[in-house]
């Protein structure tokens, strides 16, 4: 794949971390069937129909935005080079140069133009020139947590070597609590293997740090999971907080990793109250051809009477018998140096998290 290239007289554009991740994800098949950044016809189709122009499901625009200075007079048909400070180098054939209606993009992708929505804000802050075209990765960038990074070709070999025919993927941005464990193990009961795939990338202030999440999961898997049934590997891409559309996008990426099933919980990829709690379940009806089966989970909670994690379908108890999982409450306890109760988080996991000087993004 990689070759030496002399960039001295080339048109070189320095991209940010998000775009560098997009490039590597495109190159390694995480974003299959994309082979580059979207041209206008595909963008319009994604916005209007949640599909590429060739009808293949695709819900989140993958766009490269530049300003005039960065474009430096390059034209359609030219080749430019995209680089990042982590060492990533990619070649791009400019197929199309165009502009977008940012309001339309925000409305279609996020269902709102409210600038308090992080995805909307990001869209409005995009530069004005969009270029679409195929990319060729020439040199990988150095990334943190490389030892947890597997690409689709690798996970497919891994699942095959493990003898896993059916694999369920779990997407997360947080350390595991008991509810997460319940959901993962319930899904694992019906398949051969579990692919725990935390999202590593741009984070908001107050999010758990990536190293905290990974070590917490390592502890959980080592102590509470059959070692031949769970794999932990990261996905380097940013959260868009696009709710239902992003749930489909997340499912497509995990299909590309070789998974056959994908866990979708309450308010998947949501933020604030922008999306109805189960909109991310309903959208899957539009995609009989997604190639990966969703495994839906509604609300789950700890029931003192039942003596475990249950959901409203299987537990008849209510009121004081119920302890709801609260990420906010767990976060507060950890911040105060407390180990959450065993009904909320495994002691070993809590102790791993508390072992970090800095648990949160500052």
């Amino acid at each position, binding site marked *: 794949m990689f070759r030496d290239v002399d960039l001295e007289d080339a048109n070189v554009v320095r991209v940010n971390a998000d775009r560098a991740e997009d490039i590597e994800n495109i190159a390694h098949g995480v974003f299959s069937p994309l082979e580059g950044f979207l041209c206008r016809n595909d963008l319009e189709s994604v916005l209007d129909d949640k599909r590429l122009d060739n009808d293949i499901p695709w819900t989140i625009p993958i766009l490269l935005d530049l300003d005039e200075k960065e474009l430096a007079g390059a034209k359609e048909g030219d080749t430019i080079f995209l680089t990042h400070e982590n060492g990533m180098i990619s070649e791009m054939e400019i197929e199309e140069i165009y502009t977008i209606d940012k309001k339309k993009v925000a409305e279609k992708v996020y269902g709102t133009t409210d600038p308090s929505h992080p995805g909307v804000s990001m869209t409005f802050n995009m530069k004005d020139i969009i270029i679409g075209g195929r990319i060729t990765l020439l040199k990988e960038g150095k990334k943190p947590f490389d030892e947890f990074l597997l690409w689709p070709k690798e996970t497919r070999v891994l699942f095959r070597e493990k003898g896993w025919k059916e694999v369920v993927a779990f997407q997360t941005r947080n350390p595991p609590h008991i509810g997460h464990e319940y959901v993962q193990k319930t899904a694992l009961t019906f398949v051969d293997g579990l692919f725990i795939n935390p999202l590593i990338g741009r984070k908001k202030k107050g999010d758990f740090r990536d190293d905290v999440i990974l070590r917490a999961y390592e502890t959980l898997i080592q102590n509470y999971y059959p070692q031949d049934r769970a794999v932990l590997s990261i996905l380097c891409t940013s959260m868009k907080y696009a709710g239902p559309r992003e749930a489909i996008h997340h499912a497509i990426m995990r299909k590309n990793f070789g998974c056959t099933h994908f866990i979708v919980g309450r308010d998947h990829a949501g933020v604030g109250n922008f999306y109805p709690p189960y909109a991310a379940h309903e959208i899957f009806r539009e995609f*009989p051809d997604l*190639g990966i089966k969703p495994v839906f989970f509604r609300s789950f909670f700890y029931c003192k009477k039942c003596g475990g994690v249950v959901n409203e379908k299987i537990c008849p108890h209510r009121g004081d018998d119920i302890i709801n999982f609260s990420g906010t409450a767990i976060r507060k306890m950890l911040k105060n140096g407390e180990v959450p109760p065993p009904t909320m988080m495994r002691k070993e996991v809590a102790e791993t998290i508390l072992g970090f000087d800095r648990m949160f993004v500052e």
Partner: protein
Amino acid sequence: MSEKNEKKFTTISIPTALAEKIKKKIEGTGFHSLSSYVTYVLRELLASMEEEEEAGEALTKEEEKKIKERLRALGYLD
């Protein structure tokens, strides 16, 4: 039909009796038209046909060897 729709949609013919059957079947469901139901069914059928084709994609021996070496080095395989 707008020009954009003309490029995105094409008309096909199905027997009237079949169309009537389908219309009755989709009454009260989430499908708002015969076209949307038929589109759904065809996408589902095509996807299942493509799954069978995809099973045939393979890596070279050299690629596979390198991948397994990396997986072992990282502890994912014994």
